[in-house]
C-alpha cells in the first residue's frame, strides 16, 4: 500500500514574495490590470509506502517539518490519496 502526497509549500504571508511581485508586474504590462496579487510557492508529489493513511500522514507531516519546508518562512499543506 502506498499513498501519494500532494504537498504545497508557500511563503508565509508576512514574507515579501519578490518572485510573485515580478510576475504580477509582468501581467500588468500585458494588460491584466485586474490581477491584484500573486504568491508563488512550491508543489511536490511524494509517494509514501505506508499501510495506513494515519502512518502516511505522520510521515508526510514529519518530512514537511524537517526538510521540505522551513517553518520560519514557509507554511505547508498536503492531501493524501491512495495509489495502487
Amino acid at each position, binding site marked *: 500500500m502506498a499513498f501519494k502526497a500532494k504537498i504545497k509549500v508557500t*511563503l508565509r504571508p508576512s*514574507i*515579501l514574495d*519578490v518572485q510573485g511581485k*515580478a510576475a504580477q508586474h509582468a501581467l500588468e504590462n500585458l494588460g491584466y490590470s485586474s490581477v491584484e496579487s500573486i504568491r508563488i510557492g512550491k508543489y511536490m508529489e511524494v509517494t509514501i509506502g505506508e499501510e495506513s493513511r494515519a502512518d502516511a500522514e505522520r510521515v508526510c507531516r514529519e518530512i514537511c517539518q524537517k*526538510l521540505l519546508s*522551513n517553518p*520560519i*518562512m514557509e507554511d505547508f499543506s498536503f492531501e493524501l490519496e491512495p495509489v495502487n
Partner: protein
Amino acid sequence: MADVTVGIVVFPGSNCDHDTEYAVASFPGTRPVMLWHNDHDLKGCDAVILPGGFSYGDYLRCGSIARFSPIMREVIDFAGKERPVLGICNGFQVLVECGLLEGALIRNAGRKFVSRQTTISVVNNRTIFTDKYAAGDVLRVPVAHGEGNYYASPETIESLEANGQVVFRYTDAAGNATEEANFNGSMNNIAGIVNRQGNVLGLMPHPERASEELLGSSDGRRVFESLFAHLAGA
C-alpha cells in the same frame, strides 16, 4: 607550538572553499584542512568554516540539503561544545537552516543576484571573530548572493539586538545604516550574527575575498586574525 588547524567543509557545489583555504593558509601557524561533506570526522580541527557557494545546487532552499550531510552532524556537535564555527555566505545559509543561528535568509528584496563590493560596519567587536576590530569600523567586503535577505520574527530581531548578537550591518561609508546600503532588504540591515554563546558566526559578505590588498581590500582579514589569535591563545 602546534599549528592551529582550521577545517573547511567542502559540499558538492561549494565554490569558495579554496579561496578560504588560501586566506587561512596566509596566517603563519595556521593550517587549513579540507573536510568532505560525507565524512564523519572533523580531524581534530580547532575551528570549522562553512564556505560560500551553492551547496547541492541550492536545491529546495539554500543550505537545506547541506544541513543533513554527515559532516554537519559533527559540526552541530562541535558547535554545541562552544567550539568556533564560521559560516560565510552559503555557510551562513546552512547555519540558519540547521538552527545553529536564528532566522532565515530569503530572496534579495531587489530580486537580483548581487555581486559587488559593499561596506559593512562592525556592530559588536566583543566576539572571538571581531575583537581585532574597533566597534564602528567600516569595512569594504564583497558580497555575491541572491538569497541574503535576513529575516526573523520581530521578537527574534529584538532579542538579537538586545543581546549584542548583531555583529555586522550593511552601512554607507560613513557607517550609517541607510536603506541604500541595505541592498538585499535585510531586517535592521543585518549582514552577520552570532549565536547567544558567541561561538557561531554567520555572515553574507566574504571576508576571505577581502583578505589582501591585491583583491581590492584586506578589510576582512581581521575576522580570521581575531579567530586565530583566540585559538592560539586558547
